[in-house]
């Protein structure tokens, strides 16, 4: 094919092409010429950044060979989240466990809410006491990094472990809370009562995080969850079935205000102690 070439590009032109300094029309003309001229193809080789080209080729192969991202990750990317965020959200077993917990909790909330629709205040009380356990479980599953096989590698990276865990927890909590809230609010005739669990949930979740900077998060979440349920059970002992909610202080205005105070105080502790999650000591990132 080179026999009929009447011209050849000089070295300056070839170097300018490789460096991307040629105009578009000149570059297009040269490209057409290069396809037909072995002499110029040989002449351009010394200017080609071989390491970069090898890298491009390897990258091309890797793109062709790469299996598709997991379904969950592809779904999140369709929602507009960038790949670097979706990967952080779905990759770890603890994150998947948190998703499962959230879904299970939301389903349980829906079942209880369906019973509430049969106008049983006992069912509503059970729902209000049980619903905060969903976020508590999510926080426990997300922050229990001992179950993360790569945790030591992850902790040694510049990405702050606390921020990473918080992003994962929020990503699971938001849909879980919205679903649970919807499950209560769609029940006819209950007014705003169905949202009374929100502040206790916030208080319990942030208190768990604060204490987890010193103690194993699973133990903390179990103790706080059990204490919450025990306090509710004891409070309503002997109360009339039609007045259970009013008998548990956490659902009265003073209790709700206390939950706000606990949330704020615990959040302050979490912010001050966030560096504790950057280490692998037992009790700090259990």
């Amino acid at each position: 094919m080179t026999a009929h070439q009447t011209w050849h590009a000089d070295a300056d032109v070839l170097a300018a092409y490789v460096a991307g300094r040629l105009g578009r029309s000149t570059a297009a003309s040269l490209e057409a010429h290069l396809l037909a001229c072995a002499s110029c193809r040989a002449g351009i080789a010394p200017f080609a950044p071989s390491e970069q080209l090898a890298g491009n080729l390897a990258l091309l192969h890797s793109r062709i060979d790469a299996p598709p991202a997991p379904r969950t990750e592809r779904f999140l990317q369709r929602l507009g989240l960038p790949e670097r965020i979706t990967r952080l959200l779905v990759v770890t077993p603890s994150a998947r466990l948190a998703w499962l917990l959230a879904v299970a909790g939301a389903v349980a909330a829906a079942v209880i809410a369906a019973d509430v629709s049969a106008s049983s205040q006992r069912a509503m009380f059970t729902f209000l006491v049980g619903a905060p356990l969903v976020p508590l479980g999510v926080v426990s599953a997300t922050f229990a990094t001992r179950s993360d096989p790569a945790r030591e590698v992850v902790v040694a990276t510049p990405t702050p472990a606390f921020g990473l865990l918080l992003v994962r927890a929020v990503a699971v909590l938001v849909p879980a809370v919205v679903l649970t809230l919807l499950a209560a609010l769609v029940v006819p005739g209950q007014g705003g009562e169905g949202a009374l669990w929100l502040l206790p949930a916030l208080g319990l979740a942030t208190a768990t995080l604060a204490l987890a900077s010193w103690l194993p998060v699973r133990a903390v979440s179990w103790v706080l969850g059990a204490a919450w349920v025990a306090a509710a059970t004891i409070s309503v002992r002997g109360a009339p079935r039609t007045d259970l909610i009013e008998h548990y202080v956490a659902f009265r205005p003073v209790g709700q205000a206390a939950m706000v105070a606990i949330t704020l105080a615990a959040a302050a502790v979490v912010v001050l102690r966030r560096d504790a999650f950057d280490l692998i000591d037992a009790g700090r990132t259990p």
Partner: protein
Amino acid sequence: MNSGTTVELDEVTKRYGSTAAVDGISLALERGVTGLLGPNGAGKTTLLRIIATVLAPDRGAVRVLGEDPGRADGRLSIRRRLGYFPQEPGYYANLTAFAFVDYIAILKELTDRQERHHEVTRVLTQVGLDDVMHKRIKALSGGMRRRVILAQALLGRPELLVLDEPASGLDPEQRLRFRETVSAVAEHHTVLLSTHQTDDVSALCQRVVVMDRGRVLHDGAPGALVDHAHGHVWVAAEPDPGARVSWRISSGHYRLIGDPPPGAELVTPALEDAYLLLLGRNTSGADGPVPTPGRA
């Protein structure tokens, strides 16, 4: 801290209950490969975790790459320039090797997708996994899985590479490739390598630190450690109850370490002989037996 010093420890102590895993260690590391030898429970992993910033000491001062890992900003600066291979290198078995290293690259702040994928491809190629990078980790052999973890440690061409027993489970060819990789990194940077393999230390390390029960027993060139064993290694037709260690070698004779009897056929000691001799002295004084892991 000298300008060439990348890691400096001053009287560093870390206790677990009543046991001092690291007991008042002072150490300064510079460019090149430093080997860390010691029996199980010697405190090597605790020391490496402190240097890798994932564990805080109870006492003592630590400087890594000129920064204080006890401060959040210092820790961040170190982690941006650190490669770490932990003793228990976990991974997500359902991910491909590429996806796992890509995930760690995201955590190492390589946010540009194209640059990141270039870098991930580079490190996986460097450890010899270019052909299997898109296989799930659970489908890879044990040696390949360890190389995946080594690959993530090499991301971003770290100034300090902390490797905790990275070569265990590698076959001879993989081990040679591992040595090639580590020595290439150590031309310009600092590598701290914990191992049970004295042949890796002989082949790679300009310096060897021997630890036992949280303390440093030896710190110097491998040759200097070997020098201590001259006159303490001999071969004989029968085992000698007075030897600290003895084992049968391929010729059918016994290789013995300790204080030789008069007229013994002394041989040139290897690093392993010197290491066992040193551990034996530390464990039980001049006359006691030395632990003989896997031999006798």
